[in-house]
């Protein structure tokens, strides 16, 4: 550890005597490249502690002998410090009253301060404590005394939120140029840390708000096995306009799958409303045509021009069979995959939801014998773009014909694999698949 400390190459802080000399040009370009590397190395990290560690890694021992990043938050000073060759040490202390220590003065006034800490002497210890408030972090600075300490504020959007404290052995010190360079460094660090903290806050809000918009994990329904696949068009948003939901009693339940117009967050907000409307409607009357009728009326009455396609199925046990009453609203017809491998399409049609004040959705009843399954999917499946053509019905039939029988999870996964291979890295629409299998033994 000390060996590394002794050999720290701190050329970045070398004084440049003649501004036109080759050596001063070199130092200038090295400083510029250090700032560029700092931005690149730390800029992508969206987590405060990790960003702090990367900053300390770059500063010690490459630039200074010891460095500390302090962030003030909720009455505490969170201190992270590192000495050459050592690990990052952390400690949190109560923030001192404003202006009573070097650190709090720098943070609140936003002006840098330079202090000399020589060997021994009570005053020096006071000076050290004033800049390094956590006792457990002071031992490392003791090891390099006598030293110069430079405390630079970290501020963003006009407010100080922390400080960068740097130490160099006494002989080396900080000249005016070094201070200017390190102030630049602190500025870069402050911008990154501020963005990181800011983002963490926004993400917390977003994740709370989006919790109800992402597809729910499905309940276990006795006598049935459920499998799903969900992929959104805008993966970075993780929310889309396709949705599914399953709810009800053990003996009489509803499965719904649909697609609202649009993509991304805006569409996801609408899916949340539609899913709620379906749940409410199903409490009154679980008949799928009645459910779609009510949801349609809700959407039409809001009259904002948004429309939704959906499939709604009511499942009831009939001995070993599972009876499905299915109604559709402008949606691709579901498939039945029989246990013997034969494939049927459920012939059911109806108008999209939200556009017309019609009240008549037809219902079709299908019976799932043990092992049979019903596959509902959105048009994102058929329209998935590929190298030469869209995924299409023919390919879907082919994939279903070759899928392992007997397990709805394996069937849905086989379709998902084929889709993912087909789409590759292309932009695609939202995709949702919901498979319902009759398995009288499932509990």
């Amino acid at each position, binding site marked *: 550890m000390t060996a590394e400390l002794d050999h720290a190459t701190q050329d970045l802080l070398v004084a440049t005597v003649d501004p036109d000399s080759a050596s001063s040009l070199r130092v200038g370009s090295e400083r510029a490249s250090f700032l560029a590397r700092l931005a690149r190395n730390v800029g992508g*990290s969206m987590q405060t502690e*990790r960003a702090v560690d*990367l900053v300390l*890694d770059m500063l010690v021992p490459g630039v200074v002998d010891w460095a500390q990043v302090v962030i003030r938050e909720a009455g505490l000073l969170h201190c992270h410090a590192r000495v050459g060759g050592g690990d990052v040490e952390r400690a949190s202390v109560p923030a001192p009253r404003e202006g009573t220590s070097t650190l709090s003065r720098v943070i609140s006034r936003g002006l840098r301060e330079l202090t000399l800490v020589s060997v021994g002497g009570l005053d020096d210890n006071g000076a050290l404590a004033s800049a390094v408030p956590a006792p457990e972090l002071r031992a490392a600075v003791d090891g390099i005394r006598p030293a110069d300490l430079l405390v630079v504020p970290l501020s963003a959007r006009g407010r100080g939120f922390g400080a960068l404290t740097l130490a160099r052995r006494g002989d080396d010190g900080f000249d005016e140029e070094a201070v200017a360079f390190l102030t630049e460094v602190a500025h870069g660090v402050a911008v990154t840390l501020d963005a990181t903290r800011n983002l963490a806050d926004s993400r917390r809000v977003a994740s709370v708000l989006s919790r109800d918009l992402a597809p729910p994990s499905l309940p276990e329904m006795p006598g049935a096995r459920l499998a799903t696949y969900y992929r959104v068009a805008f*993966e970075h948003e993780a929310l889309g306009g396709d949705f599914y939901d399953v709810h009800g009693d053990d003996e009489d339940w509803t499965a719904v799958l649909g697609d609202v117009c649009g993509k991304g967050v805006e569409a996801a907000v609408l899916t949340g409303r539609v899913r709620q409307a379906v749940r409410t409607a199903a409490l009154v009357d679980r008949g799928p045509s009645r459910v779609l009728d009510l949801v349609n009326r809700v959407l039409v009455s809001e009259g904002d021009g948004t429309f939704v396609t959906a499939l709604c199925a009511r499942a009831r046990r009939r001995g070993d069979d599972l009876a499905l009453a299915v109604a559709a609203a402008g949606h691709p017809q579901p498939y039945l995959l029989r246990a013997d491998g034969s494939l049927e399409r459920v012939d059911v049609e109806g108008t999209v939801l939200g556009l017309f004040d019609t009240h008549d959705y037809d219902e079709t009843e299908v019976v799932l014998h043990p092992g049979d399954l019903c596959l509902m999917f959105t048009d994102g499946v058929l329209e998935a773009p590929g*190298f030469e053509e869209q995924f299409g019905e023919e390919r879907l039939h082919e994939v279903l014909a070759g899928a392992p029988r007997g*397990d709805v999870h394996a069937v849905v996964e086989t379709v998902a694999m084929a889709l*993912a*291979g087909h789409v590759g890295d292309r932009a695609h629409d939202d995709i949702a698949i919901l498979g319902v299998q009759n398995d009288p033994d499932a509990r």
Partner: protein
Amino acid sequence: MSAAEEYLTVVSRGDRGGALEVVRRLQAEGASPLDVMNQVIAPAQSRVGELWARDTWSVAQEHAATAVSEAVLGLLGALVPPPSEHSAPVVVTCVEQEWHALPALLVAEHLRTAGLPVSYLGANSSAEHLVRHVHETAPRAVLLSCSLGASLPRVRRQVEAVRATGTPVVVGGAAFDTDGRRAAALGADAYAPDGAAAVLAVRALPTATLPMPTLPSATAEEGLAVQADREELTARLRHRLLPTEETADPWQRVLGDHLPHLVGSVAGALVTEDRTVLDESLTWLADVLEHRKAPPGATERVAVELAGVVREYPAAARLLSVRTAAAG
């Protein structure tokens, strides 16, 4: 019959109850959840792949067996006490287009058993999805599982995406060599051959890692070009090898399914600068074709046509010329 063989027999039938019985008996004899994973589930799972390759098992049996093992792992996992370490979680997942989640699940359970909090994302994680999750959970590290050589170019992309956030990445799975050379070539911070090694690797990681250098070598860059053109190349290869739609013979169907992987493993060999990625893919194909009664020399013909298809990519062409020269 050993417990492992017995377990394999019951999972081949998709028999959850039977599998649980084997597991409970082992536990009654004093085996820990970790012992059960290492001695029964992991070996059974690697046998499942072999049995399919030899045409002894159907895809359906493979799926059924995997489903049972996943369910058993879930139950074993529930026995593991909540994590003792209050640190950020370790994200465990499979690279995009990898659907073999069981190895990753085994590693996740290993980490949990060792007291580390885990966030398990399962199969097929895209780079976008993974990075968003990293931003949301600020994990200690990301563990990326990859079993196919053809997926190695995607590993590179995902390691790059995760490291840009400062988060260290550990890779593992059958697509890597045991010396960790491929892992290093792809920029991973560490390589772990199994769950126990993953625990050690995670504990030894730095808290933060630097972004990857942007420019790979010319060979690696060509690998990314082959990866980008893989669909075009696969289509041309398909046209040369299976010109008609009628692929009635089982070996032709399997070959057809494998063509994208073959092109992908050329890209994988180039990005890792390790020709054995391609050799392994061809050896595996030869084995699979032989068990499905392909005519003799089928794999050699595949290699020759593959060489023809990639001839405009100098490093790829070199890989295949060495191979076809050795074979011929």
